[in-house]
């Protein structure tokens, strides 16, 4: 018997499954935050979630709208200052996974959250780097979750806000004290991983009911598929229930204020 679920739910559940209880995760806002909290509420109850506002080991009951909602501070083990967060906890090497979203991603998993077009005359101005540039290099590894589309998955990003493996796939080579970089990208269509040699993103698993052509059409470069292409396991009834509850609780909370 098959359950009904949306592609967004498939993405959140798959992203959540990437986390385990022994990880210390620096969480980006939006999709990563949803996935990280779903992990905490299902299979990874002891995962340590850290947000850049300084909240260490937080356990929010609803998803925060901003990176510094009161909920994060009140449910945290402790809250530290922003320089302490970036200097001691992140740069100091205490973060195992940085979990990031993005506006654009390219074949070498470089992320662009700065702008579309030319820097001095942008077509679209985006928010900018925030914590991501240093999360991506100082965390031991990076997970990325983003919806799959041709606008998002481009051959070369317009601007490297946050390095994946650089314009040539070699940006991390011989750099001391740098993390492994992106190890997995989870979209609403598939799972991608960097090729061990070239670092180019390769599809390793298709979500149920997604075809190769769906991914090809939603990707802005000639996407490669792994020789052994898996099918991502469907969400369980339990995961869907927890996710839907979390989202309903969050919507009610944010709408109910004032």
């Amino acid at each position: 018997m098959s359950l009904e679920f949306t592609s967004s739910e498939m993405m959140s559940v798959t992203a959540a499954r990437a986390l385990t209880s022994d990880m210390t995760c620096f969480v980006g806002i939006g999709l990563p935050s949803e996935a990280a909290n779903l992990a905490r509420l299902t299979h990874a109850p002891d995962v340590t979630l850290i947000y850049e506002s300084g909240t260490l080991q937080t356990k929010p009951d609803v998803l925060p709208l901003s990176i510094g909602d009161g909920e994060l501070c009140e449910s945290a083990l402790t809250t530290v200052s922003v320089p302490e967060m970036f200097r001691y906890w992140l740069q100091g090497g205490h973060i195992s996974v940085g979990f990031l979203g993005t506006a654009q991603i390219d074949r070498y998993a470089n992320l662009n959250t700065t702008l579309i077009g030319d820097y001095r005359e942008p077509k679209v101005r985006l928010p900018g780097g925030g914590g991501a540039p240093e999360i991506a290099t100082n965390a031991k590894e990076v997970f990325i979750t983003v919806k799959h589309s041709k606008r998002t998955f481009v051959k070369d990003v317009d601007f490297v806000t946050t390095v994946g493996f650089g314009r040539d796939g070699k940006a991390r080579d011989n750099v001391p004290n740098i993390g492994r970089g992106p190890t997995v990208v989870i979209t609403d269509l598939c799972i991608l991983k960097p090729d061990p040699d070239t670092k180019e993103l390769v599809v390793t698993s298709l979500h149920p009911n997604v075809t190769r052509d769906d991914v090809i059409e939603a990707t802005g470069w000639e996407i490669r598929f792994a020789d052994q292409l898996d099918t991502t396991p469907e969400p369980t009834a339990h995961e869907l229930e927890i996710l839907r509850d979390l989202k309903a609780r969050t919507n009610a909370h944010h709408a109910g204020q004032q």
Partner: protein
Amino acid sequence: MAEFLSLQEAVSRHISNGDTVCMEGFTHLIPFAAGHEIIRQEKRDLTLIRMTPDLVYDQMIGAGCAKKLIFSWGGNPGVGSLHRLRDAVEKGWPNKLEILEHSHAAMACAYEAGAAGLPFAVLRGYVGSDLPKVNDQIKFIECPFTGERLAAVPSVRPDVVVIHAQRADRKGNVLIEGIVGIQKEVVLAAKRSIVTVEEIVDDLDAGVNACVLPSWAVTAIAEAPKGASPSYALGYYERDNAFYKEWDGIARDRETFQTWLKDNVFEKGAA
């Protein structure tokens, strides 16, 4: 010792046209009441510094207070763009806005270096990023001990800083609780500081390791209840997330924004 002033007096006396002004509060305790007073007093040509410009700088930029913005993440958190900021950057309305952008880690380090009286900050940052190509304030240096290549940015030492805090006692000592962000560093980095507070109390009731700014480290204190709304003050009121969402519609259009500004800022007096 900190001087108790009305918000109007504090802004009028300590902020001048052309100043470098830093209004901090990392998603929490954002000094909106002070921002509105700066708009009402029609301060101009300010260089605004803030890690996350948020709605407060969107409003000040749209009102024409700023000539330059130094920041590291310029969005409406969880909602989308800051439309007034974008209009200024993309179309030069109401005036051209020069921008200089960093990452959070670099700005946090730059504030800390400012507080420490150092000329620059050093961090393991900006590796592989294009940001150093568009910001000439990001340089790389070699560690004199290990040879490691590290990023360097100038410290932030603003003319005046404005922050909001939960409370001050009658001597002018200030308590900040919850997400303390960068507030202590930025006050110590600045030449002058204005702290708005929810209330003035007899006893701060601070724990021994609490984040307290002594009166002699602060220039002026102004009482401004709900002075951080629509952001929040832990222990006083919650973040008005509904307004953050509503702002997207208000700020998208120049006319709607100007009407909002007239009704909610210019026709309201200082707290």
